[in-house]
């Protein structure tokens, strides 16, 4: 049982000597993703194809080892964290774009392909891949599928699940299956829909057939600065109230603007209480008309500065600020705790006020940067993990903010997944029957519960201390 030398040897035979690692340094790095939770794996395996993944899962099954898939580790809910130890299964060697079919407008890719790299390749054929998480320059297509990730442009184009046609997956017993197909609407049960967004708890994705779209003829991006969150929120409602669905509609608050300007100099006015980024695309003529219409609405809504990007470089810069915003918060404090609750758009101002109040109550700075168009909040609580006792406050504040979203008729997560940061709150929105139904699906696909254990489903009994605690390496000398 467990991970003895014989198991390690078997794993090495399955994936190659160099592709099983259990050196302390490697393990320590894998204890975290981009969230603040962490726990050490016992070993890391780097298979290169579905057969090797199957072999690893078979060995893990024999030894009753947990297995946690990992893409780029940019997840924000602890999804790739090996909460119960076991094997971290990295998909870093699955980096091939196998085929781009310009006629059928699809691509067949391995899960470790970076979202942005697929975009670059698609662009050579006049196509693009729509879901664009702000982490797209690093996160993988497999991770996106597992989290059903969204991004600024998902307001118009829909989230990841709308762009995946089929997947090759390996189940925890080592069997390999293809689910879905080439066409968007497959007969029979929508198994693909079950697997997309399953956060590595049901299967390991080893190949994906994704949809590509023709690059729009024209794109127009505008930045509008507002005196306050309220006035910006009203503008968001007004734009959508006019029946306009822009390709993207993003908001940043004052704290975020300051952090972003420190690094990107994206040109957001630092005097603003909030900045909106609005993008429309389509045919040249209609994009122009739409931009003008939006400009008019924003002006009526107290925007004191509106800038339309003149060229691709300026557009890129406006977006660079938004997409790097979460990282840029490091200029303020070294750690962030980020929730991504969703609220009905009309209730944005009041929930944001409540979020601000909670931050003040706990004396924690909060930065808001989010997909305003679909009411997907991202309150970032900023803090320094090295401060003793701070974590309790941070967790409390986070929980209260989520509660505020739910109370306003919203939900737990828009796109970052439940992972191990929000699983304890699942009973807030799901009754025992719902949870039992989900568990039944899990039991069929992963009967022994070894795929990414401790995620999504609320923990039975006492909630484990969630912060990095299990680290075996010289833990007493570490800060946390």
């Amino acid at each position, binding site marked *: 049982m467990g991970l003895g030398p014989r198991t390690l040897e078997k794993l090495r035979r399955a994936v190659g000597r160099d592709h099983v690692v259990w050196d302390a340094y490697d393990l320590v790095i894998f204890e975290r993703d981009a969230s603040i939770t962490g726990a050490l794996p016992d070993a890391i395996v780097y298979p290169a194809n579905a057969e090797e993944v199957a072999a690893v899962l078979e060995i893990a099954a024999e030894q009753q080892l947990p297995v946690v898939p990992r893409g780029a580790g940019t997840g924000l809910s602890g999804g790739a964290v090996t909460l119960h130890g076991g094997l971290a299964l990295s998909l870093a060697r699955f980096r091939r774009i196998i085929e781009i079919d310009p006629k059928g407008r699809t691509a067949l890719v391995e899960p470790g392909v970076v979202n942005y790299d697929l975009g670059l390749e698609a662009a050579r054929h006049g196509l693009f891949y729509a879901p664009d998480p702000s982490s797209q320059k690093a996160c993988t297509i497999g991770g996106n599928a597992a989290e059903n990730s969204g991004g600024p442009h998902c307001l118009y184009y829909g989230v990841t699940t709308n762009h995946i046609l089929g997947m090759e997956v390996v189940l925890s017993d080592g069997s390999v299956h293809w689910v879905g197909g080439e066409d968007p609407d497959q007969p029979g049960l929508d198994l693909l829909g079950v697997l997309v967004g399953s956060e590595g708890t049901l299967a390991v994705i080893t190949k994906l057939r994704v949809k590509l779209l023709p690059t729009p003829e024209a794109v127009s991006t505008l930045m509008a600065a507002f005196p306050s969150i309220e006035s910006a929120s009203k503008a968001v409602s007004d734009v959508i109230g006019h029946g306009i669905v822009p390709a993207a509609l993003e908001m940043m608050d004052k704290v975020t603007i300051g952090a972003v300007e420190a690094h990107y100099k994206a040109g957001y006015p630092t005097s603003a209480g909030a900045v909106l980024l609005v993008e429309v695309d389509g045919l040249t003529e209609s994009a122009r008309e739409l931009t003008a219409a939006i400009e008019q609405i924003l002006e009526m809504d107290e925007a004191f500065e509106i800038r339309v990007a003149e060229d691709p470089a300026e557009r890129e810069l406006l977006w660079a600020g938004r997409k790097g915003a979460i990282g840029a918060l*490091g200029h303020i404090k070294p750690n962030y705790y980020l929730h991504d609750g969703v609220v009905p758009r009309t209730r944005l101002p009041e929930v944001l006020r409540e979020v601000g109040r909670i931050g003040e109550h706990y004396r924690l700075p909060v930065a808001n940067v989010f997909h305003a168009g679909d009411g997907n909040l991202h309150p970032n609580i900023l803090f320094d993990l090295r401060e003793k006792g701070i974590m309790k406050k941070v967790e409390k504040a986070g929980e209260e903010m989520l509660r505020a979203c739910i109370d306003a008729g919203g939900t737990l997560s828009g796109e970052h997944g439940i992972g191990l940061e929000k699983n304890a709150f699942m009973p807030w929105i799901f009754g025992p029957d719902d949870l039992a139904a989900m568990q039944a699906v899990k039991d069929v696909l992963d009967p022994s519960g070894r795929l990414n254990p401790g995620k999504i489903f609320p923990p039975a009994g006492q909630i484990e201390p969630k912060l990095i605690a299990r680290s075996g390496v010289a833990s007493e000398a570490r800060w946390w």
Partner: protein
Amino acid sequence: MAIDVRRAAVFHGPDAPSDDDLATCVHCGLCLNYCPTYRVTGLETESPRGRLYLMTQWTRGGLPFTRDLARHLDLCLGCRTCEAVCPSGVPYGRIIEHGRAELERVRKVDAKRTTATIVMRQVLKHPGRLRTLGALMRLAQAAGLTSLSAQGRQLPKLSEPFKPPAGNVARALGPTRFKVAFLTGCVMPILYARSHEASVQLLQVAGCEVHFPAAQRCCGALFAHNGDLKSARGLREHNERVFASDDYDFLVVNSAGCSSHLKDFYDGVGERTRDLFEFLAEVGLPPPRHEVRARVTYQDPCHLAHAQRIKRQPRELLSSVPGVELVEMPHADICCGSAGLYSALEPEMSRRILDEKMDSVLSVAPEQVVTANPGCQMQLEAGLKSRGRTDIPVRHAAELIAEAYF
């Protein structure tokens, strides 16, 4: 003195990174895909986020020093691409230089590295000893750096070394608009004399009187990058005195590694230092006189693109030459694997990175490759040679631009 490898690392010196500097890494991972060693290995231990986490743990006493730790730090190219893309402003360059210095202090002496360090000290610090290629080659061989030739990265064919003009001043062509000093550097005048000639010619065309202070020595960048901060400091202090003169307004440097080091570490002189293209773009060149027909692609030297954030200027200057067709290769700003002595110390990783680079270069079918740093030039030449494409010359971008005037 025995060194306890289990004790926490301590960074020394006035610019040593603090724990706050280390803590600016928020672990977002946005740097991963830009790191050449992560791209080719897929290993997080070979990524910026990973290396930062290891150094953080090492300084906080959470991880001991071992050979493996050293390996991960050794494999870093020091290209600083991660620093340029990091939204959180992690001062990676400064952190890794100190990490390396600490590494050199504690590690059991590794033969190859030590010889390399001794050779570097002897050769670079004393310009007299650097005069002939023969000497350099012999020393390289003595240093066990034969991988230089083993991997096809041979030192370029030598023409006459660069010599400053009589009196150590070159006059402006036309009225004098600026007085500048020129860093001749340690290896460039011997290996790539033509780069220097072309650079000086362009400065003259731009109306500069160019001074070549005779007492100048190697800027010390290679020492700093390899953890020998003491030698670097010695050379810096010497050069700071040499370049302190009021005879000129700017110190112009055409090797990216050197200009970046001068800007980062030289007191007084640093503020007056300009990269050649940065300077030319600022002061302007007269309209070109000839057409130069060539399809070229430009490789960003890391120390220009990432350490100094200079990417636009060389491209604009190249594009302004009539006849030049500038084609962008994919990932032009990702390191070629040269990185100072790296290609000699870590030949295997360097080769893998170079391989990826060659795919990118050849995918745009250039007639020439241009860059702005001798190390990159040498590495790219070796790469093209290994692909049997010696028909594609690699040059300093200044050489191509100068053809438009002479």
